[in-house]
């Protein structure tokens, strides 16, 4: 199966490889695409399975890295800026 992640010309070859590696890890661990029925979503609904379940913690971490590194973003838009970078 040919797995297309992103265009290599735009994101670079290294990121293509890393992205595809993540997908392959997922697939090789038995994660074939099989969306759950509503009554099967109990585990997905657990707090530990949420993206950024702890909003304050996520915001603090993003702010920390924003002030120490050049890269930022990736989890949302419109949070505003600050003078730390």
């Amino acid at each position, binding site marked *: 199966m040919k797995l297309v992640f992103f265009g290599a010309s735009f994101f670079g070859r290294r990121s293509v490889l890393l992205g595809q590696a993540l997908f392959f890890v*997922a697939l090789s661990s038995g994660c074939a695409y099989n969306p759950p029925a509503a009554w099967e979503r109990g585990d997905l609904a*657990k707090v530990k399975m949420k993206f950024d379940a702890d909003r304050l913690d996520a915001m603090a971490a993003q*702010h920390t890295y924003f002030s120490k590194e050049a890269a930022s973003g990736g989890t949302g*838009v*419109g949070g*505003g*800026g*600050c003078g730390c970078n």
Partner: protein
Amino acid sequence: MSSKIDFAGSALARCAPSDATAVAGPTPSQTSARFGSITLAALALPGLVAPIGAQVAPLEEGVIAAKFGVYEDRQPGLTRVRAISPSLYIASPIASSWSFEGSLTHDNVSGASPRWHSSISSASRMADHRTAATAKLTKSFERVAVALGGAYSDEQDYRSRAGSLELRIASADNNRTWSIAFAHTDDNIFPTNRAARGATRRTNELGLSVTQNWTKHDVVQLAISRAEGRGYYNDPYKIVDIRPRERDQTTATLRWNHFIASSGDALRTSYRFYSDSFGIRAHTLDAAYAKALNDRWIVTPTLRYHTQSAANFYYDPVYDPVVGEPFPVVLGRFASPDHRLSAFGAVTVGVRADWKLDSRWTLDAKLERYEQRSSWRLGGGGSPGLAPLTALIAQIGFTRTF
């Protein structure tokens, strides 16, 4: 500004919520009608409500949380900056189809600054305060949610105001959510040394994401965002720092959460690619393993790796053997010795503990150590002459549902 408060450890800033549904289930009425009481019971359990900003259906209960964070970073021979940051968060349904989310943070920052490279002899004492707030109002329809958000941050020499509009659309089976969001940010910069008067920066951002329940134990999210900023990007506290007046940033983030049914644990992973018009390319990998010790305790070790290339105009300062200070060598139209624009790698190792006191209250604590070294850049070739930077981050907090 960047070198005046070259720190971290507080909340807010560039912190809009993740934009798509992770595990948003059907609305209560749909669920009730189609799937009976089992799912309803599961969704009604405390702590199982999807976080606000990541669902289409309206909130079913409110959440209030508070944190107290301490951050301290250092380089060899110098404790640089300490930040103490209390913060507050609330999310609540305010009507049958409306939800509100807001946060408030105050940073107390003190320490040695500025240091325009790794030299420590020019360090001086500084202190600053920052107050930041966010608010978001969400209206939910049957499979659609519209959110209007705002953010405000104010400190001695920097003010930022942002507004955002987000549209989330869930698929008919509620296993997939598309999101599109637009944001505009107005920043005003007024350095205390008067190096720039009336400086401004305007940024427009567009974010697209799709979140998919891949299996009953896996959820994945792909988010792509583009930000275009115009205005003042220099660091007025550095001796030689001249940057382009435009910066375009692109990110692509892939997140994957996997539930391990045999143990009840969860593995959360993410990869982010970043590229900007300064010439910086970065890769960031994150992993967290949420280990359930029993019904009340969850311990989560975390690991993060970040690597980035240098900006096109970053220059490696020369340390004079007599003077000792990094000697500014300006080679082009733009130039900056800001170490955050250099090539380096960084590793964060941490652990978090969550203690569920009862059906409403949860306490949490986190300890992390961050280290940044030029030699840790992926593939080598980090910028020379930079002292390693380490930081300790400690945080305690509570969450209560209502």
